[in-house]
């Protein structure tokens, strides 16, 4: 991922590593009041120790308090916020400006991350794993493919976010215009649809097992159900429908 030239920022590697590892737990204190806020403070804390006076100094305490307030973002993109806010705090940027920047950054980091990761990358990796299963892959092959593929994207995104945040400070807005973030969901969506066209039939074929004589009926029933669900979109939760149908079927099967 490239973009505007970046400035190197002098935090020791071990501190960046500590922030990266803490970033994996950024949602550890997620709650309905401050959402990710306290998590952001938790992740930034190793970097804030470099403020004048260290952890006993008033600047450290003021910055930690400020950064632990309400914040929301996609967890994988918090690195952008963490990096840029850490740099701003260490460079002594006016607190009021930091507060404004924090408020402005939250929404884009949430929506961009949700579209790219939850609504694109995760379903893509799932259907690739289903494809491996349908092709006869072993448990290790299916799970290994899913975890390696997914986490390649996951860890890269987190590391890139922290790097770009530290390098650009408050000038990080242009990073959100990165082609991967803007156009990624479109391309990944197309790829997911293509892979799903292969993965769904072969995975389901393997699950059906001995009932292959019923394949015609299964396809028709699934298509009818799919059309109903697709028409209902957000008004219906598929997993709840699955729960209801299976509950009725189980009841029927033990009473018949």
């Amino acid at each position, binding site marked *: 991922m490239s973009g505007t030239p970046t400035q190197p920022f002098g935090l020791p590697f071990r501190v960046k590593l500590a922030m990266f590892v803490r970033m*994996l737990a950024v*949602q*550890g*204190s*997620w*709650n*309905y*009041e401050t959402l990710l806020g*306290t998590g952001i403070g938790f992740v930034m*804390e190793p970097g804030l120790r470099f403020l004048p006076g260290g952890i006993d100094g008033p600047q*450290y*305490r003021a910055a*930690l*308090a400020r950064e*632990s307030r309400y914040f929301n973002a996609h*967890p994988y993109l918090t690195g952008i916020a963490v990096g840029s806010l850490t740099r701003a705090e260490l460079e002594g940027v006016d607190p009021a400006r930091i507060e404004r920047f924090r408020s402005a950054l939250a929404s884009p980091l*949430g929506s961009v991350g949700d579209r790219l990761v939850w*609504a694109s990358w995760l*379903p893509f990796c*799932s259907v690739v794993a*289903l494809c491996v299963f349908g092709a006869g892959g*072993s*448990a290790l092959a*299916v*799970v290994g493919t899913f*975890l390696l593929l997914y*986490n390649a994207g996951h860890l890269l995104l987190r590391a890139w976010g922290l790097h770009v945040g530290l390098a650009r400070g408050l000038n990080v807005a242009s990073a959100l215009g990165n082609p991967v973030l803007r156009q990624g969901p*479109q391309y990944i*969506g*197309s*790829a*997911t*649809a*293509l*892979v*799903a*066209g*292969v993965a769904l039939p*072969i*995975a*389901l074929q*393997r*699950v*059906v097992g*001995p009932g292959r*004589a019923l394949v015609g009926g*299964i396809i028709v029933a*699934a*298509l009818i*159900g*799919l059309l109903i*669900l*697709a028409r209902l*979109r957000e008004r219906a939760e*598929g*997993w709840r429908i699955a*729960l209801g149908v*299976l509950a009725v079927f*189980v009841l029927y*099967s033990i009473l018949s």
Partner: protein
Amino acid sequence: MSFMEALPIALLGAVLGLDVVTFPQAMIARPIVSSTLAGAFIGHSESGLLVGVVLELIALDTLPFGASRYPEWGSAGVVGGALFASQAKGMPGALPASILAALLTAMISGSSMVILRRLIAGRLERSRALIEEGSRDALLSLHLSGMTFDLLRGAIVTMAAMLIFSPLVRAIVATWGSESEYSRAVVVVVAAMVAGGALWKVFHSVRHVIWFFLGGVGIYLGLRAFA
């Protein structure tokens, strides 16, 4: 299943339940992974994988957007995989009953996450003054206790689900009246329609998406013809 037999499964559920939101969100909580791992714990990873695939298809419908409420698949996948892998091979009711138990666990576990988030908010309220003063200890305490509670939450949900559903699934399997092929077929239809509906819900705005999907189906048919 006794408490001691369920304990390793509950520990697995705790670790994978933690992954859903808290740490490290590497998607080891996805059912395709969690069910397979649970099956491997019982000694039948392939059985766990089968349940995992069905649950993964259903889980495509739920995207963990921010503050939205969603089922928790980490513990649920473990419960489904462990229950199915514990049944004798070829029992027709084992798959639907295990999937049903996993879906109920996912629902209950999702509610437990809401309770946990309220609990953390309550703790935050009590330590707000200290955090507003920039107390490092108060912040670390809040954060680490949140993670610990989540670990405990996963363990408790998984343990409770195993202790409740294990005898229930065994009883259902013993009294099952539907034929084997129909039992599988119903599960497949449910999984297929939910997965298809979910993919459509997510990707319907992608340009030419239907053509990409049909292209994939064409590749599948081509591969079948040449196989």
